[in-house]
């Protein structure tokens, strides 16, 4: 659909079209020149006949006199050739010839060098069934005598018409072949670009085993495809190295921390078992609990960074499970509603439409919404309602589902919104609150894995709207 439209926008089609127009212009000029030359040649040979006739008549009139001339003209006219004669005296009255009357001036056309063209009417002496186009000139023999000699130019015209038709058809065939060629070339180029584009899309989605496969010889496109494949192989290597590193970090760094945590916990159990009584033991126990809590925070941030890295690198393969966002939103709202109510506010849930099915990961999307809700609880105004809304949006690049979380807190200044989504960024007023500065980055990464994004905007009269979008398309 979109591709059909873009066919005419390809450079291959446009290039072919420019070439075609240029080629047609040159061919048209050449054929036009040929036609013109042909017309002139035909007309010249006809005109020579008239001059020849004029010479004969002039000589006859000079040597033999008017009566002989009349007889000659009558004889010539009756001979039935396709030549028209009209001998007239000084007043224009007919003396001889096969034309009944001199054509009226408004029925004739006259060239600058006195050639006249007109149609011989049907009632003339010529036995023709149709009006006959003729061309000739008036030869003045003396003051009282003039002879009009004209010849039939119909065959000549027919000949030129045939030629014009031939040339026209040739041009038409050229245009059709040219257009078909352009479309074919564009299709072919576009098909190969589509193959490359589709493969790249797959690769961007994290399927690094995808390779661009073009049929064809070693032309520039296959060369490009080879380079792209080399690049993908390299990216895949880097990705798996990165994954290996993060997995190793996960194992080699978290395991000892986990062990340390366990040891502390064990010590706490030991203390509670021993007979050390009173406040000293309790204080030690509390300290241990605090230490364990600190390690937990450290490990939690660590886990968040790891999953963010994996999400951002596309190393998380998205399973193509159908998820109903309406259910996801309802479930997470059900989990958080009592928490919001405990602050003395309401969680306003608004779901447009019955269902909103996308392919995605329920846990990830739920976690993203939970992060946004927790931000709203943490940074929004206490006691003010929090809004959670699911809506469908038609955008130029596809259909999206928007999940918006609104709070009525101080919000984020427009200039800081972009920065707020970056890793580890903690904005000034809330810098002292516990948190890692990774929550919004994680939401953004989750949205991007699902073909969408995260947009922060202002709520009215104040507050923040965080809109997480998820692509509704398969891809």
């Amino acid at each position: 659909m979109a591709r059909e439209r873009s066919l005419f926008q390809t450079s291959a089609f446009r290039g072919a079209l420019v070439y075609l127009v240029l080629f047609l212009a040159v061919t048209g000029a050449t054929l036009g020149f040929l036609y013109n030359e042909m017309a002139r040649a035909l007309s010249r040979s006809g005109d020579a006949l008239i001059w020849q006739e004029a010479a004969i008549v002039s000589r006859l009139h000079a040597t033999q006199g008017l009566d002989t001339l009349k007889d000659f003209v009558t004889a010539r006219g009756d001979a039935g050739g396709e030549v028209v004669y009209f001998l007239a005296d000084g007043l224009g009255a007919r003396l001889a010839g096969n034309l009944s009357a001199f054509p009226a001036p408004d029925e004739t056309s006259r060239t600058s060098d006195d050639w006249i063209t007109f149609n011989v009417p049907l009632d003339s002496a010529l036995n023709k069934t149709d009006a006959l186009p003729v061309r000739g000139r008036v030869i003045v023999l003396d003051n009282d005598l003039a002879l009009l000699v004209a010849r039939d130019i119909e065959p000549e015209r027919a000949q030129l018409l045939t030629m014009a038709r031939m040339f026209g058809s040739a041009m038409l065939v050229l245009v059709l072949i040219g257009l078909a060629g352009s479309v074919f070339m564009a299709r072919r180029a576009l098909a190969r670009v589509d193959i490359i584009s589709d493969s790249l899309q797959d690769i961007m989605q994290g399927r690094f085993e995808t390779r661009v496969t073009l049929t064809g010889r070693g032309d520039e496109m296959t060369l490009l495809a080879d380079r792209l494949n080399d690049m993908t192989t390299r990216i895949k290597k880097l990705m798996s190295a990165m994954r290996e590193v993060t997995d190793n970090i996960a194992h080699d760094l978290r395991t000892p921390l986990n062990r340390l945590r366990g040891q502390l916990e064990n010590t706490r159990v030991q203390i509670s078992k021993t007979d050390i009584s009173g406040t000293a033991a309790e204080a030690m126990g509390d300290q241990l609990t605090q230490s364990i809590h600190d390690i937990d925070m450290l490990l939690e941030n660590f886990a968040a960074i790891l999953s963010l890295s994996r999400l951002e690198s596309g190393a998380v393969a998205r399973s193509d499970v159908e998820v109903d966002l309406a259910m996801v939103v309802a479930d997470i709202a059900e989990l958080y509603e009592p928490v919001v109510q405990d602050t003395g506010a309401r969680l306003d849930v608004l779901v447009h439409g019955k269902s909103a099915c996308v392919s995605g990961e329920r846990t990830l999307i739920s976690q993203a919404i939970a992060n946004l809700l927790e931000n709203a609880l943490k940074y929004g105004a206490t006691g003010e309602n929090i809004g959670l809304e699911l809506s469908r949006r038609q955008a130029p690049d596809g259909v999206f589902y928007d999940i918006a979380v609104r709070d009525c807190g101080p919000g984020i200044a427009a200039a800081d919104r972009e920065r707020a989504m970056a890793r580890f960024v903690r904005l000034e007023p809330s810098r002292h609150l516990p948190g890692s500065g990774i929550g919004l980055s994680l939401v953004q990464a989750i949205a991007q894995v699902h073909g969408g994004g995260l947009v922060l905007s202002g709520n009215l009269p104040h507050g923040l709207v965080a809109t997480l979008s998820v692509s509704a398309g398969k891809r």
Partner: protein
Amino acid sequence: MDATEKINVLLVEDDDAATALIEETLSGIGYRVSCAQDGVTGFDMAQAGNYDILIVDRMLPKRDGLTMVQQLRAAGQNAPVLFLSALGEVEDRVAGLRAGGDDYLVKPYAISELTARLEALARRQAGKNETSLTLADLSVDLVARTVMRAGEPIDMQPREFVLLEYLLRNQGQIVTRRMLLENVWNYQFDPQTNVIDVHISRLRAKIDRDFTSPLLHTIRGAGYMMRAEDG
């Protein structure tokens, strides 16, 4: 727990310190623990011995934990398996459960989390097809989905009912917040806010507030437990 019916646990873990810690903790609360250091030994021991529960680390030398459990399941071994792993992405969990695991605990975990889950796994075998659950004067009809305490009906939201059912099925044992989030709400992430506590206090208001002896107890630093006061 009664000493005559000690629960036999096979721990397959290559990290000595983690093994020592788990072994000590579990022995302390009355489990009999056997250890294996790698996947091959673990497989042989699981086949030879009669264990009630297997605790298996995913990353093991010689044969990784997933493969080992798959092979055990293929060989007809049906003791519950608890996976331990540093890999905590959704796909990793799914892989663990597909391989035949019954629960999946991501490192780092609190030792109390591990023991709570072991207790749940050990008891799960019994009483799967009950139609009602009771504790003192509280009774839950799983078929009619009604709750009664001291002969009075208590109105429940659907999710509250699932929460109460889960707590009652594990009565007498500690249930952690993470277990509740995974089993009642089916989520695998840790909320920063006290969402679970709020749901528990709502439930408590319904089943405990108007009665003299509380049944739903908070275990500090660990989670919650359903038990009768003198139990």
